[in-house]
């Protein structure tokens, strides 16, 4: 057998064909079945085929090696051009057109139908062709879709006027890979599409530009088919060979093989093409759809979808769990058990691809990586350098960049209707809504501080989310605002009010607090919920701690110091405890500055001493703190923990040098007086509220343990954030808690109340020290 010299186009084309026939990926032998199919597609009489096979030496050898195959292809071309089959003609015939392989009949019909649809309506027609997701039907649809697409292209391509006969679009070989997409190149020029997955890509026989491949990009169902620019397609149609779609077997290995084959051809194609679209790119409308779906689960686009929610969502797509699991592995980039918006879009994209029959890649395609799967990329049509979405799967490109909304809308409704649950993705429980609330509340920074700290929106992966969701649910049960942040700001105004009306209000609050604490105690479930809730509240919102206690300084201090029971919100649970203790600390801060305060505390009934201390303490810093705290108070609850201390610190330093003025003195005194005013209520209620106090002590202990746990958790989590002050703060908080615990232990004695107060005061004091 003499050698055959091939032109570059021929070389490429034959290589592709060989890859297609190389079902076993041997790279050396083309499977006989395939080759025979191919030759049958060439529409040559049987004896010619036999002759070709004999000539190329395959009959002699018994198999089609690469050279035999190439020779055979050339002979096919020779035969198709009407020349006699001769070995010599292999090399002597110049400008031989590429061999043509015709697609099967049914595909031709579909092609014809596609032909007649107008460009503008194509999307509609395409969508009509493409049925909704159930796997299995994919084959036919895709094939028809692709044919439509190709037909369109060919119809518009005058040069390929012979396309109906010429371009053998075949439905992609097997089950997966049916992502067809027409890519629209605004740049005009070639309609080039990345290889549409598994099937072989045939260089069309087109005599026009054999060196340009017209690639099909398979689109997921919801994608719109782009109309190629009329006359712009100088590229040749890639033709799907493989007459009869291979059995619809979900044989991943097989498809992988084919995909590898196609990948190589695609690579070649890509080399030739001037512009190339990433098969896994997400188009604008796709992305918009994904974003909308994301919103139904998680309104905050910066938030996360917890794993369980995502699981339910994607289970509705009716893909097998194994595949969903793999999709998750691919898309959860940071392995945190939750999906960000980008991760979610990637996952959704993969689900859609899979539903359309595309194999899942082994690795996440770059375009789906949750960095910048941006619309800006998607707007660059035809500018991408070849993206290898192929890693072993149908590297079918997602819909082309040029969006066409109507088609998308059309396809999606179909999609929704066909899948039972697909349209009810948004049935996500309201807990996610509240989840969002939570996050978004954290996000805004305190305008007063003007320092944005890294708010840890995400704590431990799913657990926190689960807890949050539970929290929201239980919170809603209590008819409380689920977001701790919402709660706290509401508390703050209350405190303000309380501060304004000094004594009796405070007293009332105290008693109210007690009563509420009683009621609180009576509800163990609440406590449990409160604990978990507080866990989460505090975890993400530990910053609120400072805010709240600062707020307390002014007003809360009035109400809180003795008021062990939390605010009117029973659901707040330990949260108020924290606040409470913080408030007490604030109080202590005032007191602790002058050491004599603490010894005075046991005589908390001795308000005169208190007042005296308040007067005498006159620590500028504290006043400043109060002032800043009041500022912070206005700021409403999202001020980060770290930044607030800074202004205070600054203030403190500046003030230290200055020395307080009388007015501040009085101001502070006023506050202290307010606090003191609340004190009277304490001794009054001591006797009868001893139980309540003990209960509150118990609760405080719970708070402490929870806080301690949270603290350790937070410390670990925040290591990555690593704002130094924050971690230091956390550590100190830990110390605080331990100290508080010790004091609580002490408080078991006769001086129970005093001990408790001492404990809280010390906590507040240390908190203050932390902050400033």
């Amino acid at each position: 057998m003499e050698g055959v010299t091939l032109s570059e186009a021929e070389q490429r084309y034959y290589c592709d064909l060989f890859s297609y026939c190389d079902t076993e990926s041997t790279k050396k032998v083309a499977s006989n079945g395939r080759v025979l199919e191919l030759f049958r597609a060439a529409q040559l009489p049987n004896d010619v085929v036999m002759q070709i096979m004999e000539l190329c030496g395959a009959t002699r050898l018994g198999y089609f090696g690469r050279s035999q195959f190439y020779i055979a292809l050339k002979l096919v071309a020779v035969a198709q051009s009407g020349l006699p089959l001769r070995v010599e003609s292999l090399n002597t015939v110049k400008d031989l057109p590429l061999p043509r392989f015709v697609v099967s009949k049914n595909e031709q019909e579909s092609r014809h139908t596609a032909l007649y649809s107008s460009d503008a309506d194509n999307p509609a027609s395409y969508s009509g062709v493409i049925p909704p997701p159930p796997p299995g039907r994919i084959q036919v649809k895709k094939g028809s879709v692709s044919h439509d697409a190709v037909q369109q292209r060919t119809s518009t391509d005058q040069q390929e006027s012979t396309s109906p006969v010429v371009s053998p679009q075949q439905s992609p070989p097997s089950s997966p890979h049916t992502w067809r997409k027409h890519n629209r190149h605004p740049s005009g020029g070639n309609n080039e599409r990345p290889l549409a997955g598994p099937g072989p890509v045939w260089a069309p026989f087109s005599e026009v530009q054999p060196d340009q491949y017209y690639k099909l990009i398979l689109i997921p169902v919801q994608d719109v088919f782009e109309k190629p620019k009329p006359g712009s397609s100088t590229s040749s149609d890639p033709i799907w060979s493989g007459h009869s779609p291979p059995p619809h077997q979900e044989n991943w290995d097989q498809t992988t093989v084919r995909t590898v084959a196609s990948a190589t051809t695609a690579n070649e194609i890509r080399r030739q093409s001037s512009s190339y679209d990433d098969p896994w790119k997400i188009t604008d409308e796709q992305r918009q759809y994904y974003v909308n779906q994301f919103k139904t689960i998680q309104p905050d686009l910066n938030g996360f979808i917890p794993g369980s929610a995502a699981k339910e969502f994607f289970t509705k797509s009716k893909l097998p769990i194994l595949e969903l699991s793999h999709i998750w592995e691919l898309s959860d980039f940071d392995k945190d058990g939750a999906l960000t918006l980008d991760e979610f879009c990637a996952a959704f994209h993969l689900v859609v691809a899979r539903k359309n029959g595309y194999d899942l890649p082994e690795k996440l395609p770059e375009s789906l990586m949750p960095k910048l799967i941006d619309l800006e990329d998607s707007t660059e049509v035809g500018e991408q350098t070849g993206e290898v979405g192929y890693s072993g799967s149908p590297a079918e490109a997602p819909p082309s960049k040029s969006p066409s909304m109507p088609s998308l809308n059309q396809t999606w409704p179909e999609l929704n209707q066909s899948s039972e649950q697909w349209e009810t993705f948004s049935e996500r429980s309201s807990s996610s809504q509240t989840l969002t609330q939570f996050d978004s509340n954290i996000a805004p920074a305190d305008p007063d501080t003007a320092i944005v700290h890294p708010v840890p929106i995400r704590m431990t992966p799913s657990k926190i989310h689960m807890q949050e969701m539970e929290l929201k649910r239980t919170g809603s049960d209590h008819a409380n605002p689920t977001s701790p942040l919402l709660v706290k700001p509401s508390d703050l105004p209350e405190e303000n009010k309380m501060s304004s009306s000094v004594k009796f209000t405070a007293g009332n609050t105290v008693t109210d607090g007690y009563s509420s604490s009683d009621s609180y105690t009576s509800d163990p479930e609440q406590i449990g919920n409160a604990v978990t809730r507080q866990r989460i509240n505090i975890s993400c919102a530990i910053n609120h701690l400072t805010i709240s206690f600062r707020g307390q300084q002014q007003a809360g201090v009035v109400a809180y110091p003795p008021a062990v029971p939390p605010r009117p919100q029973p659901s707040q649970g330990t949260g108020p405890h924290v606040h409470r203790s913080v408030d007490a600390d604030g109080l202590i801060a005032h007191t602790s500055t002058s050491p004599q305060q603490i010894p005075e505390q046991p005589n908390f009934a001795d308000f005169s001493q208190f007042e005296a201390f308040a007067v005498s303490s006159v620590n500028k810093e504290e006043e400043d703190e109060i002032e800043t705290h009041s500022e912070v108070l206005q700021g409403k609850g999202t001020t980060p923990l770290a930044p607030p201390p800074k202004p205070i610190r600054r203030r403190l330093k500046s003030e230290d040098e200055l020395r307080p003025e009388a007015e501040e003195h009085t101001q502070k005194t006023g506050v202290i007086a307010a606090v003191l005013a609340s004190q009277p209520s304490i001794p009054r209620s001591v006797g009868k509220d001893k139980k309540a106090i003990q209960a509150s002590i118990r609760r405080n202990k719970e708070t402490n343990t929870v806080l301690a746990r949270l603290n350790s958790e937070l410390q670990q989590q925040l290591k990555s954030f690593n704002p130094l002050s924050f971690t230091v703060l956390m550590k100190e908080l830990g110390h605080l808690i331990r100290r508080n615990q010790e004091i609580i232990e002490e408080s078991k004695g006769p001086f129970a109340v005093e001990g408790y107060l001492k404990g809280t005061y010390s906590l507040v004091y240390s908190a203050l020290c932390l902050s400033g």
Partner: protein
Amino acid sequence: MAVCIAVIAKENYPLYIRSVPTENELKFHYTVHTSLDVVDEKISAMGKALVDQRELYLGLLYPTEDYKVYLCHSFGQAIVGYGYVTNSKVKFVMVVDSSNTALRDNEIRSMFRKLHNSYTDIMCNPFYNPGDRIHSRAFDTMVNSMMMQVC
């Protein structure tokens, strides 16, 4: 080199077993199974000790000599097993071939750490139900790399 890596669930059924040489695979399975007894023994011996990273690693499971003797007959090479148990009582057993220079303890520990990390990644997957066989491709890749690299 790790010739066999197994992930055993809390109830002592395998979640994942992968061996390198395809022959003798059954022997490896048997080895892993027998090593579970040793693992349980070590776990119970630990008592109420706090479980931290160090104690997750059980170290060499078999007395080397016995194991060598046993295995010399069947494998013709010394094979030792290492164990590692997580906080949720999921056990990783790794059978390594010590015919080459024995892997240092640190290397074994790092391998177990990698295994543990991959396992936790699987756990993060909401579609994975604890107790299922592990089918994760990422996990497979990681295990393969461990088995190949050491070879």
